[in-house]
């Protein structure tokens, strides 16, 4: 019931309604009787008339359409020999069906059943293209956004082989009539994608037509900036302009040319280190067949690459392998060369099936770290993660080598002319949108300008970020938060991403020691140094609502994200060196929000106190994490065994699945709604290696 005013029915109305209802009911029961009377195949003229009347009052009565299809098939199969050769006879049967459909559509032009019946009949052949286009023109004029009609149009265009260029012209005409027609813009994007894909003349190379399209959509956006019709089309054009046509390796760890010092894990008496590959989009097919590892000792036989993601299909942005130094080499002080390369990387593909075929390689050295072990019997103290326990790092340390994990991606494969037109198009768009903002205070203008600036800068500087542009983008986003409060959090998230990008660049370039020292700190108390590494990256109290630029942070061992506004830590799974993580005082709303931690096998110290775990009835991570609900994992039967009647299955299966695989020695979790005495007992049982829980030593 859409758009019908609410009013109290008078007795007269009620009577009229009851009378009409009785009439429809009678039609329905007569029809159903006929329908079930199949023994007689009673598709009589009377029966079909009753059916047509029913469809006219209720075009959504699906069984009635089915009956017509049966009758149609019946009349074709029971034709006499004379009728079979008579194309007029068949045509008259088809015409009758199309007439019934047309009547139904006039009653309700959003009826799924009616549109499908028409498709079904027309598919039988013998229908005139002209008539279908005429009908479409009628309906598409009456309701320019009717998606059924647009779907039917695409169906007819496909069936009758109407050219895509002709259909493109139809969208141009529709938009020229009224640019506020999202359906037409949409269809335009579909047609252009096809033309581009097929490299049809005039659409390849794409610069010429893209320039025209920018102008076309600009006219729409500038005429009424509040009308959304052109917004998404513009963003799509921008994506068409800047997107790379294939996946690439965006960054990796260890850094090229670095000398890795790997500590021995005393308990297991082994030394391992991760190699992380981080791509610009999720890829599949990373394996020992596609990645070549060369070392001086024999390890490459047992190298397995694992996707760092919770889907079961083996695709991820980041992949890791944990390389192990052979047992017999642990005492030696030798240094080994390791080289990772992509000789057979065509086997690595994006989700849309495009191969990674830009070769790359990097090399580093590894040696076993023979540092002092803690004295026998000395128990590990609790590491305080508060401000008081941090001091400025010793600037004599060679930070640059440590931080250089980024893979400087260069556009060397690109045709220089192609980059030139791209940056020219975007530069021209930037000046157009600046012009728009000079006379109209509109959100789409600011948002588009911010996006254009980010795209332009990335094109010019690669992974760098020009400080003045970053400042301008942050300013635009701040204005948007004020201008459009309902979408405040959207802009806030974007703001956080830009801010982190800016910080990541500071860390990379290390041009200024001062700014580096702002984010990199050292622990005063050093008993846990083996665990935390020499520095802690402190991104605390920045009001971050989202994390990003992960590919620049692969080196981080100790990370402080406390006192922000994070409700998600998606992406942290790539930080394979992470051993100490402070997430206290954020907005994490459920255990499932901690899903990325599952991949952090080195994590020993975790602070998730003062979040919102257990405070919400809706879990926005329910379908993004590993869970039986999304069929990514089966329900863990070990849990019932573990719980052994102590806890109800529903209550603790989530924390069981998150913490069960972790090897924590220090955990802070108080200040969350889900934490009570029963839960603390559960954790103690679940985490046998835990030494410190909520600040107290466990025995």
């Amino acid at each position: 019931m859409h758009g019908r005013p609410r009013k109290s029915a008078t007795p007269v109305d009620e009577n009229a309604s009851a009378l009409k209802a009785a009439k429809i009911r009678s039609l329905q029961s007569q029809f159903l009787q006929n329908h079930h009377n199949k023994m007689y195949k009673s598709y009589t003229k009377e029966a079909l008339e009753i059916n047509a009347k029913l469809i006219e009052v209720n075009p959504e009565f699906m069984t009635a359409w089915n009956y017509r299809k049966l009758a149609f098939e019946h009349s074709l199969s029971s034709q006499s020999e004379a009728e079979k050769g008579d194309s007029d006879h068949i045509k008259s049967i088809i015409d009758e069906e199309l007439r019934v459909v047309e009547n139904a559509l006039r009653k309700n032009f959003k009826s799924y059943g009616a549109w499908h019946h028409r498709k079904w009949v027309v598919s039988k052949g013998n229908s005139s293209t002209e008539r279908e286009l005429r009908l479409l023109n009628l309906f598409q004029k009456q309701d320019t956004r009717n998606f059924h009609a647009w779907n039917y149009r695409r169906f007819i265009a496909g069936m009758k082989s109407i050219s895509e260029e002709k259909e493109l012209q139809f969208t141009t005409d529709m938009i020229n009539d009224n640019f506020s027609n999202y359906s037409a813009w949409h269809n335009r994007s579909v047609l252009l994608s096809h033309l581009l894909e097929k490299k049809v003349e005039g659409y390849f190379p794409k610069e010429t037509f893209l320039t025209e399209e920018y102008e076309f959509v600009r006219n729409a956006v500038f005429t009424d900036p509040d009308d959304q019709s052109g917004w998404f089309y513009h963003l799509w054009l921008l994506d068409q302009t800047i997107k790379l046509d294939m996946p690439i390796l965006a960054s990796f760890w260890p850094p090229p040319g670095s000398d890795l010092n790997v500590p021995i894990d005393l308990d297991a008496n082994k030394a391992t280190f991760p190699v992380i590959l981080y791509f610009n989009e999720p890829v599949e097919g990373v394996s020992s067949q596609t990645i070549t590892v060369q070392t001086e000792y024999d390890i490459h036989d047992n190298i397995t690459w694992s996707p760092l993601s919770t889907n079961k299909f083996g695709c991820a942005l980041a992949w890791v392998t944990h390389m192990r130094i052979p047992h017999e080499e642990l005492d030696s002080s030798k240094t080994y060369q390791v080289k990772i390369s992509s000789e057979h990387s065509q086997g690595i593909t994006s989700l849309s099936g495009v191969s990674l075929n830009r070769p790359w390689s990097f090399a580093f050295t590894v040696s076993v770290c023979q540092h002092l072990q803690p004295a026998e019997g000395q128990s590990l103290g609790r590491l305080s993660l508060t401000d008081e326990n941090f001091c400025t790092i010793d600037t004599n340390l060679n930070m640059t080598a440590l931080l250089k994990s980024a893979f400087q991606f260069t556009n060397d494969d690109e045709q220089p002319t192609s980059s030139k037109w791209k940056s020219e198009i975007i530069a021209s768009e930037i000046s157009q949108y600046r012009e728009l903002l000079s006379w109209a205070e509109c959100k789409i203008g600011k948002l588009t300008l911010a996006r254009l600036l980010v795209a332009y800068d990335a094109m010019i500087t690669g992974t760098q970020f020009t400080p003045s542009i970053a400042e301008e983008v942050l300013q635009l986003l701040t204005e948007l938060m004020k201008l459009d409060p309902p979408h405040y959090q959207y802009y806030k998230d974007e703001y956080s991403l830009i801010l982190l990008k800016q910080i990541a660049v500071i860390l990379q370039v290390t041009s200024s020691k001062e700014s580096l020292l702002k984010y990199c700190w050292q622990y005063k108390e050093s008993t846990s140094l083996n665990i935390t590494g020499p520095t802690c990256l402190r991104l605390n109290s920045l009001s971050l609502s989202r994390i990003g630029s992960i590919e620049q942070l692969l080196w981080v061992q100790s990370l402080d994200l406390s006192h922000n506004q994070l409700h998600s830590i998606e992406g942290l799974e790539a930080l394979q060196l992470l051993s100490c993580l402070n997430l206290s005082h954020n907005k994490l709303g459920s255990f499932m929000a901690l899903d990325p931690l599952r991949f952090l096998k080195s994590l020993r110290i975790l602070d998730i106190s003062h979040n919102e775990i257990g405070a919400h009835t809706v879990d926005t991570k329910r379908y993004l994490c590993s869970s039986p609900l999304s069929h990514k994992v089966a329900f863990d039967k070990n849990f019932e065994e573990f719980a052994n009647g102590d806890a109800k299955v529903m209550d603790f299966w989530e924390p069981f699945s998150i913490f069960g695989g972790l090897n924590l020695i220090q955990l802070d979790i108080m200040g969350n709604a889900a934490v009570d005495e029963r839960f603390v007992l559960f954790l103690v049982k679940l985490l046998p290696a835990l030494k410190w829980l909520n600040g107290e030593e466990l025995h």
Partner: protein
Amino acid sequence: MGDLAAEKHAKYILLVEKRKDDVESVLMEHLRINGAYWGLTTLDILGKLEAVEQEKVVPWVMSCQHQSGGFGGNEGHDPHLLYTLSAIQILALFDKIEVLDIDKVSSYIASLQNEDGSFSGDIWGEIDTRFSYVAICSLALLHRLDRINVEKAVKYIISCKNLDGGFGCTPGAESHAGQIFCCIGALAIMGSLHYVDKDLLGWWLCERQVKSGGLNGRPEKLPDVCYSWWVLSSLIMIDRVHWIDKEKLVKFILDCQDIEKGGISDRPDDAVDVFHTYFGVAGLSLLEYPGLKAIDPAYALPVDVVNRIFLR
């Protein structure tokens, strides 16, 4: 705007169920089983399901089953996937899935998967991503997803992805919030949300919120309470629901209540119906409105019902 008139809405639903003499009820007869699902789920979210005699509902649902294994919209109507899901959902609400011949129902559903991974709604061959969702949700609730080719089902849905990150009924069809729910829901159930561009789609979805606080289903369209479900559940599944103003949306839904007779309408002061009452109440549940049971955004059933099925 006032608070949620929970008692009134429960009464309204129980009344509609009994009403048979007006045009609206007669015109709803062909999808009575959908209506029953909307009404019963609303009652469950409101904590009033016990007001319904399940001894009557369950046999009636079973009377709508066709010999093929599929369900019709009412007794004597032809079977279709749309009605089969409602039948399974109603049985799930009452923890009575075991009354089904599960293999027979799953065979019916699996038989409707096409070579390209898409699903037809019934034997007459209409193809639509709505039917992909319905088939996948049904089979998952029956623990029979292995009866279909999941990989192809995912691929087909992905082939319906558009410039705005949304999805349409078939490849090339325009994005629509209802259709997006179906595609996102199906991908969520099949653990395949990594194919979705969450930021792009999230931006399109959050821009569905209009000045009144209500949500529309496509750009430049009027807001409607039913999109509180389609848009919100999609935003929740891709973890972008914080991009809209929840308080304003709560106010919009509450403004659409008939606080005298119960029921919720598409827009303020329009005529109420069961469909919009369900989507209004379910939307409020997704917005964490106090006093309501939580509803699962993918299976469109109360969370406790879904957990009962999958977590044991």
